[in-house]
């Protein structure tokens, strides 16, 4: 199962857990699985079928443009990060 870092502001949903595991072949499937175990996770992370504006996701240490559609391996590490910009 993928390992997901839970942002500190969302740990009220996971009983204080900073890292949880969830199954899924894509980030979207992992988020769906998380939402079953920890209701409310999806509403915080997603806007419809997209990640919330201003949010990015990294899988195995690499930011991905695919967002929720990014494939996830069985041992993948997933983090939700702020999207940033350059000048």
């Amino acid at each position, binding site marked *: 199962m993928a390992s997901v*870092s839970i942002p500190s*502001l969302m740990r009220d949903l996971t009983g204080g857990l900073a890292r949880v595991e969830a199954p899924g072949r894509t980030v979207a499937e992992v988020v769906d699985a998380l939402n079953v175990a920890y209701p409310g996770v999806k*509403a915080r992370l997603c806007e419809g079928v997209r990640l919330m504006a*201003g949010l990015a996701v990294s899988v195995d240490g*690499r930011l991905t*443009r695919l967002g929720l559609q990014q494939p996830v391996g069985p041992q993948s590490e997933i983090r939700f990060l*702020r999207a940033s910009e*350059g*000048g």
Partner: protein
Amino acid sequence: MANNKNFSVIGTRPPRVDAAEKVTGRAKYGSDAQLPGMAYGKVLRSPHAHARIVSIDTHAAESLPGVYAVVTSADLLSAEERAARVAAEDWGFLAACDQTLAHDKVLFAGQPIAAVAARTPTLAEQALALIAVEYEVLPAVVDVLDALRDDAPLLHPGLRTRSLAAPSEQPSNVAVYAQQLKGDPAQGFAEADVIVEREFRSLMVHQGYIEPHVSTAEWNADGKLTIYADTQGLFAVRDQVVWLLRLPMSDVRVTPLEVGGAFGGKNNSYVDVVAALLARKAGRPVKVTMGRADTFLGTGPSSGTVIRLKLGATREGRIMAAQAALYYEVGAYPGSLAGSGAHVMFGPYVFPNAQVDCYDVVVNKPPTASYRAPGGTPATFAMEALVDELAEKLGLDPLDFRLLNSVRNGSEDLDGDLYHHIGGVEVLEAAKAHPHYTAPLAGPNRGRGVAHSYWGNWGARSSCTITVNPDGTVGLVTGSVDITGTRTSVAMQAAEVLGLPLERVKSSVGDTDSIGYSDVSAGSRTTLATGTAAIRAAQDVIAKMSARAATIWEVPAESVTYQNGVFAVAADAEKRFTFAELAAQLPNTGNTVIGVANVDVGEWGASFAAHIVDVEVDPETGKTTLLRYTAVQDVGKAIHPSQVEGQIQGGTVQGIGWALYEGYVYNEAGQMLNANLLDYKLPTALDLPMIDPVLVEVPFPGHPFGVRGVGESPILPPPGAIANAIARATGARMTQLPMTPAHILKQMGKI
């Protein structure tokens, strides 16, 4: 390739491909666009920071002879379309429209209200004065902490804070709230022997590009629109124009002209849509040129900030804990820069325990935009000033303290990601070994300061084509606007792969109809990502020419090699073509050879810098004089060292502007008091010592030549380095930017 020292082109210092045009004054900038029958556009801006628009009467302006068109928000969006967008809750679109031409409310002094196209610029100005706007002035909020108060005026009554926390139904001026938490900060502070804590403030700062924004729009007879733009991103302009004017992408062509400075401020489009609206209504091309006041008031500066920071360390010098709260003004519309500031300020060091809270707050000021290392400069100032104070309290050398706590390959950042292929330690060691650091600094009121910094850099999407001409030259086209000399640095990478001298590579930037999508030239990405595209396109050329040689020689393609500018077959010494010889054969043996590449670079290397500065402070006046400046930076691999040095010098000077001179000054009503270059001081050559750049090359292995972005890093350390030098010179710690003489005297206890 990164370790190959036998480069022919990489690492040399040829003249920039745009040098002759620029130094002879022939280069065509945005304001040089001139079309038959062209009219001149001007924009009317709100004098009020917060007001309801009761009415706009344009009749007198429209009646003025020589006026061709007047536009307001009604020309951008009809009442029916607006109602439909409101019903669809399309707030992002409506906000973008209001920032182009305000509909019923203005949220900052300088917001566009109407625009005029006339026969001459003077006539357009006269027509603006004839537009009667009735306002109902509302209370404004101009300070970030005031905007957080419960009784603060709400800029957007519908705005709810965007956050990963439990949603709130309470309207707020906090657009975005984010938090990072690592370890147990309370425990970390409990284990610290020394704790320092301060509040730092900074003002809004403008990018200060010399050339104000300009756009020229022309509608063709077939209904297609061409825009001659002054921008960092031709596709960004296209996307903004088609979005707001609801046009097919194929109907808009954007041609970029030379750019007279940008620094992040031309990622955004400010006058392109207005120019297009005026041109459509006037039935003729229209050029809209902003003045300097327009530029200060009507474009996006960097955030004003309040940053509260607390650090704790053991007496041996290990940082144990950090706590920070970053409050960033994002201007009148929601945006996000505080998170970027946090990422930058916590980048250089290992923090086993930390909590960072970031607040992006709307205020009645211009909507902020990117400025070279967006959000990072005031944040790095705060961190470097406090790290220095901590080192001083511990009795440690400031560079030794930084080295002790520096991130290394494998260190974990606040999000839990690991650093890799970084050169932070190498940069600090190079600074420590530099003669400047140990040179005697004689005389009273003098001090030496250092600061360190981190910038993440970027990759993203770039396109490149290389066409082989029969005479052996090649034409290279990218979609990346050249704001830093990248036509040269990108062409050098292609020339290296092609085995050609640079002068045989003609390098240019295409328009949106002629080249594939490319992201903005920003984030220190162009030499890395567009350079990667050029390398791939050059490799495509070599593969296609090798195949052509194989066809001519009737040998298997895999038997053809290309080395040192020669196609050959190892088994047959007779089979040999130079690049030019094979290029000459192309028209008679098949189709033109065109190399094509379209990349999305997903990995990039971070950049670290360390600056050393000597200052002298006049204890009577508080005036700071810079005596000597050294800027050390990890640049990966310098493709064109002179250009890299230029980036470091330019970025450092802008950081010096942040440190000592620059800042938007407002009255309580939210009106800017220094919207001109006399009262808003930019650093000039008279204010500066030689900036001595030192290149440290720790190659980034994700790029074939080891490139990492260089443009943004150098703006970050100057405020911290100068503050620390002033502290050594005066014994007083600085807590605001700019560090004006008044602030210095106040901190010294003299006023």
